């Protein structure tokens, strides 16, 4: 099997990403809101659109970097959750979900307005709401049953609505009457900024590209390109539409219309123009709302993946394979919001502002997240699109400031509702998510760069579940060296990828592995009171990836799992492990673990690995708080009876070099003439045996090797084969 559990195909190309982003944005926002915008800010509302577009562009820039660093489902939620932890993750997750509901409700009310207004015998808000609900029911049904490869239909829909708007703008420019544009800003700068908050909803959509990032081909190229391009193009389009609208009709007349753009079109394109705009608006509302439902299911999926919401929501339909519960829940809330329109006059602008509020809060936190990622610099964060120096930190700083400015200008009721949703996120975190999520944010690492002296034990594990013993031993080893520096356990897991991964979502695998790793290692890190860091990587060459981690991470020692097989006294390992053994820049131990670590004994032979052996023996003994024991053999395997003090001298020397006092160790003396038999007897009394790495020139260790082989063969012992770091052994 190629990849464990199956590969995840990336299927969305550039065109699909653009129609997804652009298609969601070009929706009710531009067909409905020009009336409200004109009422609030007059012709200057085109500037509101430009400002909103700029705020969106800032978010798109930050999101591009984060999305290429972590191309996986969830968008803003995922990045904030990773960077700032699950409290802020909950806030943004709930914010995005509710924001998408507000937006969806807004699109559907717009859908109703654009059908009700032009049709003579339909009148009144009741019909608008009814049609909105009918449209929503239709969309819910379609999404419940599921669609496949529907992108071609989407392309045709988005293409035609864009064409209609282009004709509207290109022809309309010639009908602008300069008199209509004067006064340009009747409500002043304040009105312009306040309107920005309302029209910002017209830009929701580029984010959907990040939300489905796990499904986009060549994410490193297509995500930034399609996000930034769609925001820029759509901004230009909106500004032109607004200029044409306010230039052709006096803004006072626009303000009274629920279908302003169609009215403008009627004035210079005749009834045909109005019909075209009406149809485009209907199509646009449907496609925008549809994308919002798709995006919502990705956000809920991502939240479920992290344990922030219950997995129940994400269970897929047994026949249609759609996340039907998430879809129905989203639609039910959306329908409730549409229904509010029966009672509330200004439902359209309220829904627009509420959605804008949620996403502005999310984007502010996204801007903070990019700073956190840059500062904490976790090893796996390597975005292919990285903001260049003047843009970083300018983009995130400006992004936060502008988002806050726009939010503060919103209607008090919106600020209240929005803050309520934020509070809900906090409550949800406290009541539900806090105890269920795995993983902490990077905030702490970003704020404090960590102590200068760290004793770092690296442990690469292939399967965190079966290698719990190794993780525990590694945590204990780090703890036993707390006198040398802040003890830290760095658990590493490399996901092997066979091929170029730009067409598959390997990031999803990586995140899964990282979470498993974290879940398995946290217990031991807490027990031993050591700092835990985890790194899951994807790489074609596992050995090389591990060596990179050792180099970058400035490791003090690395523990590798080993099956315990030997051949001619040398440990048998996979090619990957052999590669790491041959090139590790630090102390290294191949560990074959049995049930318990227990009492540990180290074999000193006067060779280059003695110091490392003494260190490991002390560490292993510390796991169950026993006294480490050393046994001395002479280099050629014979017991040197001529030098009675030799053992004590060697132990003292080695212990000093290992940074420990000789008194910490107890020393065993070999008994009898046959070193091998004597060694076997001694080793047999212990649970864990530590020996130096067999040297290239055979014979040097032969007695030891044979004794160890015998011990290994009994299967009752844990064995560690230890090699000193190259720096030590050259001395």
């Amino acid at each position: 099997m190629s990849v464990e559990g199956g590969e995840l195909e990336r299927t969305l190309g550039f065109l699909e990403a653009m129609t997804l982003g652009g298609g969601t944005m070009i929706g009710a926002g531009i067909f409905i809101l020009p009336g409200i915008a004109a009422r609030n800010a007059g012709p200057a509302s085109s500037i509101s659109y430009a400002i909103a577009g700029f705020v969106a562009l800032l978010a798109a820039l930050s999101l591009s970097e984060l999305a290429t660093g972590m191309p996986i489902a969830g968008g803003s939620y995922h990045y904030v959750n990773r960077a700032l932890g699950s409290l802020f993750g909950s806030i943004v997750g709930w914010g995005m979900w509710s924001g998408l509901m507000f937006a969806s409700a807004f699109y559907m009310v717009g859908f109703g307005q654009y059908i009700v207004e032009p049709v003579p015998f339909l009148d009144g808000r009741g019909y608008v709401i009814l049609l909105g609900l009918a449209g929503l029911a239709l969309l819910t049904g379609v999404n419940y049953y599921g669609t496949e490869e529907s992108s071609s239909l989407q392309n045709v829909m988005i293409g035609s609505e864009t064409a209609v708007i282009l004709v509207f703008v290109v022809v309309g420019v010639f009908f602008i009457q300069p008199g209509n544009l004067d006064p340009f800003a009747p409500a002043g700068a304040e009105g312009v900024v306040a309107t920005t908050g309302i029209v910002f909803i017209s830009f929701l959509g580029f984010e959907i590209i990040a939300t489905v990032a796990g499904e986009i081909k060549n994410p490193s190229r297509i995500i930034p390109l399609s996000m930034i391009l769609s925001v820029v193009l759509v901004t230009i389009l909106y500004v032109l539409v607004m200029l044409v609208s306010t230039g052709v009709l006096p803004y006072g007349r626009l303000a009274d219309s629920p279908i302003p753009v169609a009215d403008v079109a009627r004035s210079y394109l005749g009834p045909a123009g109005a019909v075209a705009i009406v149809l485009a608006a209907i199509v646009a509302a449907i496609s925008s709302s549809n994308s919002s439902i798709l995006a919502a299911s990705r956000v809920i999926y991502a939240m479920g993946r992290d344990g922030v919401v219950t997995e129940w929501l994400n269970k897929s339909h047994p026949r249609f394979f759609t996340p039907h519960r998430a879809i129905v829940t989203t639609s039910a809330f959306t329908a409730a919001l549409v229904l509010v329109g029966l009672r509330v006059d200004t439902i359209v602008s309220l829904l627009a502002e509420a959605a804008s509020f949620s996403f502005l809060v999310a984007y502010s936190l996204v801007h903070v997240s990019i700073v956190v990622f840059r500062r904490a610099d976790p090893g796996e964060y390597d975005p292919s699109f990285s903001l260049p120096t003047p843009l970083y930190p300018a983009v995130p700083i400006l992004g936060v400031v502008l988002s806050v400015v726009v939010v503060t200008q919103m209607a008090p009721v919106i600020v209240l509702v929005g803050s309520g949703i934020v509070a809900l996120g906090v409550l949800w975190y406290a009541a539900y998510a806090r105890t269920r999520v795995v993983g902490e944010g990077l905030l702490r690492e970003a704020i404090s760069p960590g102590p200068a002296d760290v004793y770092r034990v690296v442990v690469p594990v292939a399967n965190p579940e079966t290698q719990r013993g190794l993780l525990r031993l590694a945590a204990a080893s780090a703890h036993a060296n707390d006198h040398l520096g802040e003890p830290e356990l760095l658990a590493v897991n490399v996901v092997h990828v066979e091929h170029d991964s730009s067409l598959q979502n390997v990031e999803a695998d990586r995140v899964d592995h990282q979470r498993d790793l974290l879940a398995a290692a946290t217990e031991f890190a807490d027990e031993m009171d050591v700092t835990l860091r985890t790194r899951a990587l994807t790489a074609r060459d596992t050995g090389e990836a591990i060596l990179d981690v050792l180099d970058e991470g400035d490791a003090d020692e690395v523990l590798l799992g080993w099956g315990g097989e030997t051949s001619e006294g040398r440990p048998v390992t996979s090619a990957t492990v052999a590669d790491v053994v041959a090139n590790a820049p630090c102390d290294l131990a191949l560990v074959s673990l049995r049930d318990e670590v227990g009492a540990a004994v180290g074999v000193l032979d006067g060779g280059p690995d003695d110091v490392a052996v003494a260190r490991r023996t002390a560490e292993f003994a510390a796991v169950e708080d026993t006294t480490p024991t050393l046994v001395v053999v002479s280099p050629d395997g014979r017991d040197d009876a001529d030098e009675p003090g030799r053992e004590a001298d060697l132990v003292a020397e080695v212990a000093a070099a290992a940074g420990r006092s000789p008194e910490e160790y107890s020393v065993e003396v070999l008994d009898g003439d046959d070193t091998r038999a004597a060694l076997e007897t001694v080793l047999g009394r212990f649970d864990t045996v530590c020996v130096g790495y067999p040297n290239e020139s055979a014979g040097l260790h032969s007695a030891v090797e044979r004794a160890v082989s015998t011990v290994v063969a009994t299967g009752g012992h844990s064995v560690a084969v230890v090699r000193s770091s190259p720096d030590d052994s050259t001395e």
Partner: protein
Amino acid sequence: MAPIDELRILVPVDVSDPDPTRLGVLDLLDPLEVVLLGYFPVPDQAEPALIRSEYEDEAESRLRDVAGGRSDLTEVLVFTHDRETTIDRVADQYDCDAVLSVREIDDIGRILVPLRGDVNIERIVSVTARLLQASDATVTLFHSVAEDADESYGEFLLRGATDRLVEFGIDEARVDWEFSESGDPQAEIVQLGGEYDIVVLGESEPSLGDRIIGRVLSHVVDELESPALIVRDTEPGDEGET
């Protein structure tokens, strides 16, 4: 001169089906290299990783069932929104020469090979030769003559193809020809195909129109009652590597 040395065939199977197609055909293809692609179609509404987390075990065991213990198969399991994209990508990655559309099939006795004058003809004939070498089948070369075209062109085409098969060591008695002048080659192929065990088709380069309305070829393949072996157009390996 030999036909393609190692004919490698991609066999896609839908593993969302609780009872996937039994592939007796894999035994028939035994002398060939087979890449077995289990794909799980994921609707647009679901993130593929979500479906994988729920169905990976089932999908793996279904794929193993289909493989039926054959050890020489390469198995690939993919969760995808788009079957075609996945087939293309996997075929590139594993250098497959042809893709088999799977129907129930117990025997390769009669092979139908419709030929147009396309550039791909060399590869189609090579693949056919390899298939003939691996079985005792007979082959019918088929050409649909366009209404205003010269009939001798079709004869020239099939003669050339036959000569090439003979060069590959195929007994000429195993090859026969059929012409049609109905003017609707697609309907003709679908109709005729029902009488054969397998149809070998060339892949056509997708045009812009194809991208919007779907490939013509896939209609033919969907309508065919027999399995179709679609010979890939691109030289394998020139895109998949980086």
